[in-house]
């Protein structure tokens, strides 16, 4: 078997893996990434300077003494302890979850999970429709901006109503986010459907547009900038218009209500995809556009509506970020939209899987903070470890996606070739 054939058959195995196999692949990828990460931690620990070694590795002396001559057991010191690092990274993110479920580390984890669930499911919807929405970041920013700026004017009207005000304003805020993000997503959708513009290019460019417009709107007090502040941000929204912290502490910026909305959204999108005519159209277009067209699906309309839905979900994510975490709109929103792409790929574009993938991301993000606070490991190294885990776990799913999209380029894929015994070319 030649090298290329071997590579191809491995590739094929990944593309055609079953659900259980995929789970096992993900788990072993996780273990492998931790092992490689441990080696990197040790290597970095050898190179760093520290007073006392955080970790000592005892090696059987014979390995080394045969070169140096010395004691039977040689111990080697490292500045960072890989076991402690991974312990803090994973378990630190949960805090004392059993004794004190509302601890602040866990709150941070869940807050991250909540926002990422929205951006992840946004990307997943578009991917399922066969549209590559790289613009979730821009849609999220526009959603956040729409919500913050509009509520700034609308919320005071409901000021005196107490809880009732929250019940009115909060859903309104989410709706505004959906509207802003949805329109901003529909735009590249329409460009693709009616002007044949590649959505990858347009959505990436619109990300910059969104950031720039947001900056323009909040960098001057004559517009929406808070005149009291030096930072580019709007005034803070009234407390009642934001997500209530419920059982958690207010300063942890997490709300169970928002998490609940996220969970409902994921289930809702899952229902939409699997149980409705619209979902059927969308999935068919994504898998086999020719068959969708045959089945009466209007390809152009499906592109626009799936992009609008995708943008709306990202927009709600932005609204949640404003109403749960920030309390106002600020420039420099973290890259939730881009992380959403990885979350979606990690989840195999399954809306329910997005929940778990978002939680893994949340754990890694909040765990990184714990590692940085609790050890001497530099933040850059923590970033490397995080990236390593995500890369390893997401890669097999990414290959699966790429494989489906490009399998027509693989002449050896037999079931595909069976479709095209004519060389895949329509003869005229």
């Amino acid at each position, binding site marked *: 078997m030649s090298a*290329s054939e071997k590579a191809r058959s491995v590739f094929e195995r990944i593309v055609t893996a079953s659900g259980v196999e995929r789970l096992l692949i993900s788990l072993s990828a996780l273990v492998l990434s931790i092992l490689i990460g441990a080696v990197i931690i040790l290597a970095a620990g050898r190179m760093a300077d520290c007073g006392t070694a955080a970790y000592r590795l005892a090696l059987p002396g014979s390995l080394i003494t045969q070169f140096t001559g010395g004691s039977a057991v040689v111990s080697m010191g490292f500045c960072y302890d890989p076991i402690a690092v991974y312990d803090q990274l994973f378990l630190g993110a949960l805090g004392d979850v059993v004794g004190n479920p509302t601890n602040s580390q866990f709150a941070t984890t869940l807050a991250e999970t909540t926002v990422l669930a929205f951006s992840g499911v946004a990307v997943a919807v578009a991917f399922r429709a066969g549209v590559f929405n790289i613009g979730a970041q821009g849609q999220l920013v526009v959603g956040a901006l729409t919500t913050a700026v509009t509520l700034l004017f609308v919320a005071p009207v409901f000021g005196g109503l107490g809880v009732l005000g929250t019940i009115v304003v909060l859903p309104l805020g989410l709706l505004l986010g959906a509207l802003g993000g949805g329109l901003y997503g529909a735009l590249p959708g329409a460009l693709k459907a009616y002007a044949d513009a590649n959505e990858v290019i347009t959505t990436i460019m619109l990300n910059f547009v969104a950031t720039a417009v947001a900056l323009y709107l909040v960098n001057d007090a004559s517009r929406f900038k808070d005149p009291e502040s030096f930072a580019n941000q709007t005034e803070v929204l009234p407390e009642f218009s934001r997500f209530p912290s419920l059982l958690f502490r207010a300063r942890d910026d997490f709300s169970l209500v928002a998490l609940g909305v996220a969970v409902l959204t994921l289930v809702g999108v899952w229902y939409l995809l699997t149980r409705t005519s619209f979902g059927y159209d969308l999935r068919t277009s994504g898998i086999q556009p*020719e068959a969708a067209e045959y089945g009466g699906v209007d390809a152009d309309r499906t592109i626009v509506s799936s992009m609008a839905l995708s943008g709306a979900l990202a927009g709600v994510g932005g609204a949640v970020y404003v109403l749960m975490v920030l309390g106002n709109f600020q420039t420099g929103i973290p890259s939730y939209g881009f992380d959403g792409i990885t979350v979606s790929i990690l989840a195999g574009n399954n809306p329910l899987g997005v929940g778990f993938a978002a939680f893994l991301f949340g754990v890694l993000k909040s765990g990184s903070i714990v590692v940085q606070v609790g050890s001497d490991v530099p933040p850059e190294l923590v970033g490397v470890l995080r990236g390593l885990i995500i890369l390893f776990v997401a890669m097999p799913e990414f290959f699966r996606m790429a494989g489906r999209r490009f399998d027509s380029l693989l002449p050896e894929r037999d*079931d595909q070739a069976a479709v095209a*015994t004519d060389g895949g070319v329509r003869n005229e």
Partner: protein
Amino acid sequence: MTDTDAAVRLESITKRFPGVVANDEVDLTAERGTVHALLGENGAGKTTLMNVLYGLYQPTAGRIVVDGEERAFGSPRDAIDAGVGMIHQHFMLVDTMTVTENIALGNEPRKFGGLVVDHEAARRDVVELSERYGFDVDPDQRVEDVSVGVQQRVEILKALYRGADVLILDEPTAVLTPQEVEDLFAVLEELTDQGKTIIFITHKLGEAMHAADDITVLRDGKHVGSVAADETTRDELAELMVGREVVLEIEKPDVETGDEVLGVDSLTVTDERDVEAVSDVSFAVREGEVFGIAGVDGNGQAELIEAVTGLRTPETGSVTFEGESVTWDSRRDRIDAGMAYVPEDRQERGLVMEFDLVENGILGSQHADPFASGGRIDWGESRAHAEDIVDEYDVRPPDADAEAVSLSGGNQQKFVVGRELERDPRLVVATHPTRGVDVGSQEFIHDKLLDLRADGRGVLLVSSKLDEVRGLSDRLAVMHDGELMAVVDPDEVSEEQLGLLMAGEHPEEVPRADAVAPEEVEP
């Protein structure tokens, strides 16, 4: 003539894909210095066979002999090393590079110990090659600036540059204008004069007759004949391509025809490349009638049917359905109005391969009663429906949860036919409804179509099986090169007359069927 004289000999090549035998013990012998045409309809297995010879596929069984030496090609690289080159239908050229750069790409002559590409040497080689074979190409022009015909010549030069003695051309004329086709044939003649061997794939029998020395005909993956071009006739070739298995006796009771269900008036349709594929075609299908369209595949039937069913927008002309114009109606509107459609390509259009049969059973009705209400799909109802189809049409394995991709081609076809015929349609547009299914199921599908006819529905049937389309049709149109040659009475017309019509000739005294509108018969 001994074995070693042949440039290429393929012996009993079999290539099997899951569910499909693309080549079934095919033999082909191309003599040195000749043009050999590989003729057959779409899906006959021509390209597969040549991909086997070019090393893109490995044969399931059989021998490849090149220059008297048995070969096993693991990849196109092996084939090129053995002197076999292939020019694909879609050119693999870099638009922004010059002709010379494209030709030398990957095999550039080097200088200074292999460190630097020797552009001068490459250019010299290309000029020398193109002069030797009388090619009119400018080595310094960019590929994006030259015509398609010249690009094709660049592809041929590329193969020659790599030392090809045997050139395979996949549908070389499909992308060319008539003048360019003539130029190409002149080039091929020059090449064979200088000892090269050409195998070209085509489904146009006129081209095969005109340009080839020998012709090998494939049908349904099988080798059905090899003839010398000057010893055969067009209608003999047409018959070989389309076949005439007279295994089926079709009992067709008389049915009173009713109103017009489908009217096609002066329809002109272009294909993907904006070439006119259907030219001013008119006909009508009435209630209780099977209207057949015969012809060699690729003469505009596909485009015509797509325009009728709403998958392609016609240039001019109109389509009426039950008296109302649907020319601009969407595909979904036409489905909802009662137009069922068994598509030609079940694996690309007719089924979503990754969906199970439950999901596939509602393709086309995913918005309609009884499978959906208020935008919600009733999967229980859908499952029952899929199970009914599986049961009634004997789909195996009888498992509605099976993914479409796991079924064999014949069973996929049965499921698609079942889904479409159970729609309670006003009109069934059926293209190759029995392609790939066993004889028993063929009869069953024929009976179902005739039941619909007896029930006063209209059937528009396109089939390349002559006996099928003759046996089922009440009136039979023959299509050639985008035009309806004639509408004939299938019971009266002779095979010879059909063969000539399919080949684009007008025999004397064809038994015409009483036409609804006289002008639809031959201009």
